[in-house]
């Protein structure tokens, strides 16, 4: 059983985001990147499946700033192979990245066959598409998203996946492998790996590099960003000022006025 996890780095929004001069993109020069949260969950889910079924786990990402950290961390957590695709332009859109990833998965020697491809359901910068369904289409595999649990039946090559619906309802699906699943949350929160193990991985693990394959022409629809700016929301709360006693008193008046007492 071979599981493939696709990772992507996104800007870390803990820091303030800066807009580049030109006003249509983020200034990524001094911007710290972090692994997309749902990709972290996808990795965790893959590790859980590896532990349960002894599967082989490969982690693949497009080369980007700080992606090495994420790949070494994945290796320290237990990934068998970590690989990045080098040679593409910086700043691929989601759709372009999906194309690049799919081509490499299909044609890089030693990657196929893959039984299950896991990636995060959605990243904070997936403006022009989602990785999971696009990769599924390119590789002619079934796709399901918003997954929060997976059970594999290795003998029959199927997976039982739990998908989240509104209002806390979940759906259980039978899926024929190979398939692509967009992970919302792993069955357990992403595990902690001590820094010492990551540093050891940096010394002993090699990140394999796959050269990006010539992009087939066509199908590169442009994303026509006209403007990008800090989000100043239209509506804003009426702010109550003062010490706790003052604001509490004012708030009680408001609640009383609304008949909430």
């Amino acid at each position, binding site marked *: 059983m071979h599981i493939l996890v696709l990772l992507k780095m996104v*800007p870390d*929004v803990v820091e303030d*985001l800066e807009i580049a001069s030109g006003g249509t993109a*983020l200034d990524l020069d001094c911007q710290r990147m972090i692994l997309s949260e749902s990709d972290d969950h996808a990795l965790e889910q893959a590790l859980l499946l590896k532990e349960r079924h002894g599967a082989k786990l490969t982690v693949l990402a497009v080369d980007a700033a700080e992606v090495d950290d994420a790949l070494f961390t994945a290796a320290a957590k237990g990934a068998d192979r970590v690989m990045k695709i080098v040679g593409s332009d910086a700043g691929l859109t989601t*759709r372009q990245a999906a194309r690049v990833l799919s081509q490499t998965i299909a044609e890089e020697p030693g990657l196929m066959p893959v039984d299950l491809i896991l990636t995060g359901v959605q990243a904070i*910068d*997936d*403006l022009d*598409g*989602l990785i*999971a*369904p*696009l990769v599924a*289409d390119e590789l002619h595999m*079934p*796709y*399901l998203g*918003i997954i929060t649990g997976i059970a594999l039946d290795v003998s029959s090559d199927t997976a*039982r996946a739990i998908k989240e*619906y*509104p*209002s*806390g*309802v*979940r*759906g*259980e*699906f*039978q*899926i*024929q492998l190979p398939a692509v699943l967009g992970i919302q*949350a792993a069955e357990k929160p992403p595990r902690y790996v001590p820094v010492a193990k990551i540093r050891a991985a940096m010394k002993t693990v090699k990140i394999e590099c796959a050269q990006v394959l010539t992009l087939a022409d066509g*199908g590169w*629809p*442009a*994303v026509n*960003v*006209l*403007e*990008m*700016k*800090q*989000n*100043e*929301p239209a*509506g*804003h*709360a*009426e*702010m*109550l000022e003062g010490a*706790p*006693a003052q*604001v509490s*008193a004012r*708030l009680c008046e408001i*609640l009383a006025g*609304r008949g*909430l*007492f």
Partner: protein
Amino acid sequence: MTGNVCVFAEQWRGQISEATYETLALGREVADKLGAPLTAILTGCNSRNLVRSLGVADSVVYVDHPLLAEILPQTCAAALVQLFLNTRPLALLVPLTNISLGIGTLVGARLGVPVINFCKDIQVAGGRLEARCVMYGGKIEATVGATGDPAVLGIWPGARPAEKGHIERAVPVTDAAVVLEDAEAIRLSKYIEPEAGDVDLTKQDVLVAVGRGIQDRGNLGLAEELAKALGGAVCGSRPVIDQGWLPLSRQIGKSGLTVRPKLYVALGISGAPEHVEGMKGADLIVAVNSDPHAPIFNVAHYGIVGDVLDTLPVLTSMVEARRAHVT
């Protein structure tokens, strides 16, 4: 459908979703500005009775097929692509929800047209569509020119009030047939209902919600006291449930419950879109947060910048005193 503004209507378990009405409301606005007709596209199996709810549209296209009984992105996308084979609409609006996520992406990829996600607004400028997208966890707004044939737009929940998009009215319905392959690759086995929590949060008039800002599980008691004083229940955002401080049945947001109480008190909740999705419909939203730039203040009616742990006990005792006076 050429030149129409189309909205993909989600039906789930026999009902049209809130997000559909919100998207229809936005679609209506856009269509009116463009002077184009608004068409709702409903897929399903034996779901034709639902078309009446789509009355805000000028027309409905209903696609019936056994494989469309449940919304599966690849199957729905295949159906939509067939519909658009000969008649390309101007724009296709798809709600970005747990139900429909992926449909817009696939339609765009298969038709070779651009897709724009995260839309919370669509403006019309010189006859062209401009999407206003909220990205990066709500911190950045991008204006994206929507071109393409159709322009496929993924709409955030809450873009418009649902009531504006919900009119029960008979409109012309076209039954469209599609040919869908059953690869038998994905099958729904069953639904799993959520565990009955001790409290049905959707029936509460007052909810006191806690987020990371309460800092410690031990401070939950303070929130519970306020909830008790106000006659309501405690709930939480996803990080609090992830930490195990509250059970899953108390989670509000995209991955949890959607509630519309009379009063929603958000304590130490930053206001990430996933949480806001679950509570934006509340009548009165009061937020307390130590960060004056927290996005929650954009959805709240009243805001208090301060330490939750300082404000909470004072507020609770005042509410209790007030209650005692009134009764």
